[in-house]
């Protein structure tokens, strides 16, 4: 009994174990040896990430509240890869004087949000889903307000908390309408009760998807994003824009795939509209940004619109394309954020015009940033091209040619502003460029992983096949 629990929930259990271990270290370890905690956590989390890829059979626990399968374990592993890179990048920031006092708290909060996302992905009913959502979002507000001495950071925390409370309310209202129709909240039973035409279901679904859209910052619900992203510490911004968005996209695809699949006629229009709006508006706002963090925030909004392309046509290729896209998006966006963070840690500069002439002084960083921008825009040798290609293929397979056309147009628009950053680094002259500096070994390792990933994941096709095989069995 207990062994069955442990084997099915092993990813959750091992993550909670690491978080508790860090908490115990915080309580017992002497101030002098506190430096050791971060590398040990890194090693443990690395092992946890690698073990997550070991295949295992799925199953259900707690009377169906918790359901897991190989596909869900894969989604968690993709998130793990991202969190591992973020942990590597955060070391330099955590070792600063102001942050070192609370470095362990940062790790604990980070793991708590990830635990919430795990439970969200493996939820078997709406109750577990909602609990996971809240476990994920409350520590996230604390992370956003982590720079207590900066008023913008507190503002970001409050804004995130209020917005997530609002969206949770809307989401819960949607769930309550589903319950009103069916009298059950279990994912397996729900589809049986959704009759072909049910206005109450349509109403509930609109509320539900609005709540999720808040979390994913899709366009009519995106207004909190830029302020929260700008106010939070850069490492938390990168966490928001990749991990939290990725988890929300995963859970949306699981729900549409498992629970709402027989209501396709209804939600395909909604997803279509959200996708077009998100891509376009995100792009148009990103064009005008001068702060690099705000710029990346809006670019990540528009990337979320591309994720939705894989959802309009509900089939296994779509889900595969989404997981593949998010894996590559994690690598490329973390690469960009890694460079931003490395520069902000040393100089504190965050404007795009500060990057003028960066190539002269820091060629390697500039090249990494260039690769990240190319991958985000989707230029062929990088992985970003392949991930977008598969999403477009899937949408075209479903006959959504107009959607693909709009997406391609948006890719071209996005190319303009991604290349603006590249132009700033390589072409624009600057009398006082950022000084030459050398970042620490952790940052360099993280950037190396992302750069290798950007090339390897795209060119090495077995990765796509591997994901596809797992999803087909889902």
């Amino acid at each position, binding site marked *: 009994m207990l062994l069955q629990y442990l084997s099915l929930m092993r990813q959750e259990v091992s993550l909670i174990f690491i978080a508790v271990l860090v*908490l115990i270290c*915080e309580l017992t370890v002497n101030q002098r040896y506190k430096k050791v905690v971060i590398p040990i956590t890194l090693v443990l989390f690395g092992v946890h990430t690698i073990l997550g890829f070991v295949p295992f059979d799925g199953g259900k626990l707690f009377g169906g509240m918790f359901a897991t399968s190989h596909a869900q374990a894969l989604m968690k592993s993709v998130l793990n890869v991202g969190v591992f890179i973020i942990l590597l990048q955060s070391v330099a920031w955590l070792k600063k004087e102001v942050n070192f006092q609370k470095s362990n708290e940062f790790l604990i909060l980070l793991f708590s949000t990830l635990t919430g996302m795990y439970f969200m992905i493996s939820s078997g009913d709406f109750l577990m889903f909602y609990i996971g959502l809240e476990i994920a979002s409350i520590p996230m507000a604390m992370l956003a307000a982590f720079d207590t001495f900066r008023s913008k950071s507190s503002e970001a925390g409050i804004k995130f908390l209020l917005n997530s409370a609002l969206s949770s309310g809307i989401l819960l209202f949607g769930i309550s309408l589903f319950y009103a129709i069916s009298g059950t909240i279990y994912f397996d039973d729900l589809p049986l009760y959704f009759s072909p*035409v049910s*206005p109450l279901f349509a*109403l509930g679904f609109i509320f539900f998807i609005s709540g999720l859209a808040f979390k994913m910052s899709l366009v009519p619900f995106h207004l909190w994003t830029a302020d929260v992203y700008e106010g939070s510490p850069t490492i938390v911004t990168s966490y928001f824009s990749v991990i939290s968005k990725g988890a929300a996209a995963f859970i949306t695809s699981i729900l549409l795939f498992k629970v709402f699949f027989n209501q396709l*006629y209804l939600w395909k229009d909604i997803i279509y509209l959200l996708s077009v709006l998100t891509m376009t508006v995100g792009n148009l706002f990103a064009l005008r940004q001068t702060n690099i963090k705000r710029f990346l925030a809006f670019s990540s909004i528009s990337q979320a619109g591309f994720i939705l392309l894989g959802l309009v046509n509900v089939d296994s290729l779509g889900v595969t394309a989404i997981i593949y896209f998010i894996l590559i998006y994690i690598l490329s966006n973390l690469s960009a954020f890694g460079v931003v963070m490395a520069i902000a840690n040393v100089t504190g500069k965050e404007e795009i015009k500060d990057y003028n002439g960066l190539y002269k002084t820091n060629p390697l960083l500039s090249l990494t940033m260039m690769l990240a921008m190319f991958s985000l825009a989707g230029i062929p040798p990088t992985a970003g091209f392949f991930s977008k290609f598969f999403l477009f293929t899937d949408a075209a397979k479903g006959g959504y040619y107009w959607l693909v056309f709009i997406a391609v147009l948006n890719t071209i628009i996005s190319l303009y502003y991604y290349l603006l950053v590249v132009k700033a680094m390589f072409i624009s002259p600057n009398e006082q460029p950022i000084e030459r500096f050398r970042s620490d070994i952790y940052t360099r390792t993280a950037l190396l992983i992302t750069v290798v990933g950007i090339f390897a994941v795209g060119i090495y096709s077995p990765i796509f096949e591997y994901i596809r095989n797992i999803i087909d069995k889902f």
Partner: protein
Amino acid sequence: MSTQILIPFFITAVFLVAAGITLAYMLSPKSFNLQKQEPYECGIPTVGVTWLQFNVGYYTFALLFLIFDVETVFLFPWAVVMKQIGLVGLVEILIFFFILVLGLAYAWKKHALVWQ
């Protein structure tokens, strides 16, 4: 199709709210006096300014109290079915306890229990 069925929903929703506000505005008797401007405080006239700053220590105490209050609520269902779930349940509740105690120890170490 079913999206069109939603239109009456929205019209009714907007209409109900608008009608409620308009009717209340038109029908309600209006009277003004100074007492209405004051913040409600048990019917007694307020003393001093209401925009006081509270010591933040109250919040930490209230939060800590709340955490352990909720913990006891979680213990009750366990106690009811303790015999049926046996050893597994005991181990689980011990893990639950352990993590909670860690939380208390954390608060203690960070001097949240000292009144400043």
